[in-house]
């Protein structure tokens, strides 16, 4: 008996606690480093940035983990369904057809609402077109997503080439990930939306666990598979909208966060893996922002670093999966 007990995993609760401490430490560091006496200005200013970073980290982490649970694949992220580039396309189209002066004057909450609706409608369409009939092939959905993602990206870059260079700069500002200019109203709306999604998801935590066993076993255990998958895709679409609206598309970040979380917690239980992923995201984003502001003095863009590290991890994972 004792020989069989070698592989008892480290307690995930303890890992979560350590991650929580790290995240808190990063947040405190971020808020307090180099304040230089101007507390009344610095605290709210940094607080807003911190809130954005935490919210974005949470949205990306949860959406990626759920997406990977649904697809049963650790290399896939929502970005592969073309979600974040759909968001870019929507923004580009708005600017192309309305012009930056109109877009600036639109209520950001209204804009966000419309964008989320389009994103959810897209995920619904994708789902219905492919799951609706007798076919129920996730790989077909994914392949379609990949192709559509390329289409969205090409269409946006085509439109971006046609518009006025000044407007293009305006657009680029919006897409380049940064926590430096969060829109307060957008932040509040995003927070409320994320809260709503979380409440809904919280009630389904145990169902998510069953999905880990695969489609057939989940059906056998009485999970309404199609409905659950559809619902998760909608939740993912909303969360991706939140993160894209706040900081633009961050393709690889979710992949990093989810795999890191799985590596440190090593459990199928979503009640542990989801908070772990959110905390890893918080640590990475906040610590990254501290380094960015105080070491690189704002010289570089966080996305450059994320894409660089993420790309390396992605390639490593593919190489490891390759036979031989």
């Amino acid at each position, binding site marked *: *008996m004792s020989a*069989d*007990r070698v*592989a*008892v*995993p480290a307690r995930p609760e303890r890992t979560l606690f350590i991650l929580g401490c790290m995240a808190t430490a990063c947040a405190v560091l971020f808020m307090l480093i180099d304040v230089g006496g101007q507390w009344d200005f610095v605290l709210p200013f940094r607080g807003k940035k911190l809130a954005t970073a935490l919210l974005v980290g949470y949205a990306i982490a949860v959406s990626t983990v759920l997406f990977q649970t649904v697809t*049963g*694949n*650790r290399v896939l992220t929502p970005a592969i369904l073309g979600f974040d580039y759909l968001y870019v396309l929507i923004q580009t189209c708005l600017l192309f057809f309305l012009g930056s002066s109109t877009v600036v004057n639109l209520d950001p909450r209204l804009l966000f609402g419309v964008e989320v609706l389009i994103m959810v409608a897209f995920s619904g369409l994708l789902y219905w077109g492919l799951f609706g009939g*007798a076919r*129920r092939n996730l790989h077909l959905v994914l392949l379609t997503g990949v192709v559509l993602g390329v289409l969205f990206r090409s269409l946006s870059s085509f439109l971006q080439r046609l518009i006025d260079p000044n407007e293009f700069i305006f657009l680029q500002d919006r897409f380049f990930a940064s926590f430096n200019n969060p829109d307060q109203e957008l932040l509040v709306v995003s927070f409320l939306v994320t809260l709503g999604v979380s409440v809904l998801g919280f009630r389904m*935590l*145990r*169902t998510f*666990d*069953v999905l*880990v*066993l*695969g*489609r*057939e*076993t989940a*059906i*056998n*255990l*009485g*999970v*309404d*598979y199609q409905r659950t998958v559809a619902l998760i895709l909608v939740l993912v679409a909303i969360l991706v909208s939140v993160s894209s609206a706040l900081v633009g598309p961050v393709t690889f970040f979710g992949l990093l966060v989810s795999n890191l979380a*799985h590596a440190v917690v*090593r*459990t*199928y239980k979503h009640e542990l893996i989801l908070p772990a992923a959110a905390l890893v995201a918080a640590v990475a984003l906040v610590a990254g922002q501290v380094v960015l502001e105080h070491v690189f003095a704002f010289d570089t863009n966080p996305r450059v670093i994320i894409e660089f590290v993420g790309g390396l991890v992605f390639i490593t994972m593919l190489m490891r999966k390759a036979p031989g």
Partner: protein
Amino acid sequence: MIEAKNVTKRYGTTLVVDDVSLRLPVGGITSIIGPNGAGKSTLLSMISRVLPMSSGNVLVDGLDVVTTPGDVLAKRLAILRQDNHLTSRLTVRELVTFGRYPHSKGRPTVKDQEHVERAIQHMGLEALSARFLDELSGGQRQRAFVAMVLCQDTDYVLLDEPLNGLDLKHAVSMMKQLRTAADTLGKSFVLVLHDLNFASCYSDHLIAMRDGKVAFQGRSEDIMRPDVLRAVYDLEIAIQQINGDWIATHYR
């Protein structure tokens, strides 16, 4: 009772299961035999709602499997398919506990834990219960999955090739355990088996499929006959009665 009416599965123009109507007896072990591609697994998958059918319907105790909510069916019917691969690491006990999900919705009670322990014991997995599934051999993993399905405690248990990857000892003990469960707990098992002799020795009812249709069905002595098996397998199979069991010898 499980009743299939005109069940058909079509992929493009290929008929995999061709208009099968069938009543599966209540209680005991029913085994489906037949050559590769006869549609055995496909039929089992459709009966258990894992695979949508092209036409026809299936009733379990009068409940249509397509329209009845999944969680209602999950308390009456359990299915284990052939290939079960997992992306997450979980232990044998965690997997078996999932079998209680239809009853506990992920919050196992003391009573659920008792079911889990009994299933683990039943499949002889006590020593392995804390091990991760990816550290087990194929046969051990197979037993863990069967334990999960038994833990679900349903009246009907459908197993697609439960002996796959099991050595002789564990294959015999698996069949004995199923036999005990059928006799003492009154459960009905439907198995897809490739080993004719296991099917013959342990089943109350045999169903022989070929080309998507039910070719023959009946008790062991009705099916374990050279002429019947020749029609099913296109193979000369000698049958001998040994200690009261009908044994096929088809090795030469």
